[in-house]
């Protein structure tokens, strides 16, 4: 299994089943398969959330219960500092609940924001395939979402959390050991771990500083806001340099392989511009390069845990 953000790189069995399901829909349209009775059984649900519009999160659920979720950012799930590919087989009761949720109101008639979507902003797409038809709904950030649709979205978000219990190729990032010396030099240790079951390839942190297709930043802000200014305005980003293990960007490997359960540790250093006082920090690791040589890389923006400095 290779990390990817679309269905084309899933394993052969999964792809074959998807092909069968899509074919069933087409045959159903042609009248070759008897129409479904009143209870809706879905063949496939695809749920896309564009936290990062260039690399949206994508969940696919098949009738069989096989489900996958590819995440490219954890910014809405900061309590879990990880991104990657998750796969699971959902419990039949959860599948049944989903089927019920989609039939409480005829999905095809639910109002959505198609034709009035803004450019940018957090958008979601729900793609439902049944034996008789196929419906795509778009929900944007600009207009209200009616309750039935919101109910569906809430359930789908819940299924995401369920699938995330089964990491396959997942990169986790954490920071520890913050130190600020008298010259206001900040030092933090970044731990990158593979918490999945399969090998993964990632862009080396040393390759992300000052790049146009990614970044590595130490984000800091005051523990309590200064009066009179927006707290978010007080956030300061530091471009770090890596003291260990790669002291120079040239000569160090561009990509790294992590075996399941393995970790790599990096010491990040940078000048801390804040005033003395209580601050907190996290690291933002972001890579948009999808392929290096023959390896598929973890793509997206990963926020670590937040620590006091």
């Amino acid at each position, binding site marked *: 299994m290779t990390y990817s953000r679309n269905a084309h790189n899933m394993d052969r069995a999964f792809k074959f089943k998807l092909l069968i399901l899509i074919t069933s829909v087409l045959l159903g349209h042609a009248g070759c398969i008897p129409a479904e009775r009143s209870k809706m059984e879905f063949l496939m649900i695809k749920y896309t959330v564009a936290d990062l519009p260039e690399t949206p999160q994508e969940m696919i659920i098949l009738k069989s219960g096989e489900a996958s979720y590819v995440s490219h950012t954890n910014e809405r799930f900061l309590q879990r500092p990880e991104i990657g590919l998750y796969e699971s087989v959902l419990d039949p009761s959860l599948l049944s609940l989903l089927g019920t949720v989609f039939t409480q109101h005829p999905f095809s008639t639910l109002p959505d924001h198609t034709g009035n979507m803004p450019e940018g902003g957090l958008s979601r797409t729900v793609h439902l395939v049944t034996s008789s038809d196929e419906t795509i709904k778009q929900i944007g950030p600009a207009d209200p979402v009616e309750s039935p649709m919101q109910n569906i979205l809430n359930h789908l978000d819940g299924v995401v959390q369920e699938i995330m219990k089964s990491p396959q190729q997942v990169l986790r990032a954490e920071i520890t050991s913050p130190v600020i010396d008298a010259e206001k030099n900040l030092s933090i240790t970044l731990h990158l771990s593979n918490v999945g079951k399969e090998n993964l390839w990632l862009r080396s942190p040393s390759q992300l500083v000052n790049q146009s297709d990614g*970044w590595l930043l130490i984000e800091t802000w005051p523990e309590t806001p200064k009066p009179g200014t927006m707290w978010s305005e007080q956030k300061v980003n530091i471009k770090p340099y890596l003291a260990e293990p790669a002291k120079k960007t040239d000569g160090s490997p561009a990509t790294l392989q992590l075996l399941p359960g393995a970790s790599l540790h990096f010491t990040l250093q940078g000048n801390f511009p804040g005033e003395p006082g209580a601050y907190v920090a996290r690291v933002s690791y972001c890579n948009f390069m999808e392929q290096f040589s023959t390896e598929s890389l973890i793509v997206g923006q990963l926020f670590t845990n937040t620590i006091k400095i």
Partner: protein
Amino acid sequence: MSYHCSECGRTLVSRAGDTCGACAMKETRQRVQAEHEETPEREVSHEERCEPVCGATQWTVTEAYCGDEANLVCTITGNPPDGPAIIEILHPENGSVIETINAEMTGGRVESTWVTKAQTENWRTDEIPFRVKAAGLTCNSSNVFTFRDRPTSNWTRKDFMRSCPRREGVAVQRHRTVYELNLEADKVKQRLKLKSFPTGGITDETKTAFETMVTTQSQATWNNGSNDKTFHRRNCQRGDECDCAFDCCKVGYELEINFVDADQHRRVYIVPQPDPPTAQISSWCRWDDSRWAYPPKAVTTYSHEVGHMLGQYDEYVTRCNDPSAAGTLCRQPAPAPAGQHNLMSHSGNSTLLSRHYRRILSFINSKSGNDTYDILPECT
């Protein structure tokens, strides 16, 4: 036995009364005729010859666009022998030689062309002479070459709908695009007028900081993005490799953003970001309405949103990518191919490509009086 030419009285001819044919100028003929009448036809030595004299030396094309060819001609009377000639194009201010053209004189005539090239920033008023060295003479041009100036325009308001790809059964979604353009002497100026509306939690100080950040970041991104691109005259004979240092065959670009209280092109609602570490809000544009979060989620957010206001499509896959057919020149692909990640495709990337300036090129060509311009490097 040799005789003097009956016109100039100098060149030797084989028969009495013949003319040498070299004395074409009436004044010369009249003068030498008078001299000859004082000195009757007589036998002369073989050493006597008709001296060559500079004749008409001038540009025959006295005005053209920079990069066009200008023709010049020089005639030398006195029947000079055919041979090499050197044409020197002279600097309009200090008279130094800016270009040397090797030519041939045939029958007392030198003709050539010069691929015109501005020499100073005052090219619009510079006057360029030339001289020809041949047959031991130096002939200076009697006229000068001047450059034809590019047309300019008044401010032109552009107000159009940018359509999204059509989907069966769904009305075509459109986004409104409004801005102004002006073709100035040396550049296209693009102006975007915005009016900001603070929402809950945005103070006057924050509004000012927001407007400053939008203006500073967006102008820098779009203006710096044009620095490695050129709008260049297609007919410039120096071609794509033209190294002209001035704007005579090239047009620059400048974006100006102003926040106004009225007559805006677009409205922008300012939305406060949630406190850290909560997930940051993304900014968006739609139709005639925009909501931008402050501070921005990424350092390139405002430049990207301004891009939509300038008529750009997203170059990540959405339901509203560039609907023009594949293969259309300067089309915006989605997703952007590897190696072409840019401001409209990826967060944090401020790269702009030639295709992002396609609307500027169209405007130039609508105002340039049939003198077509291309953008270099070409759109990929």
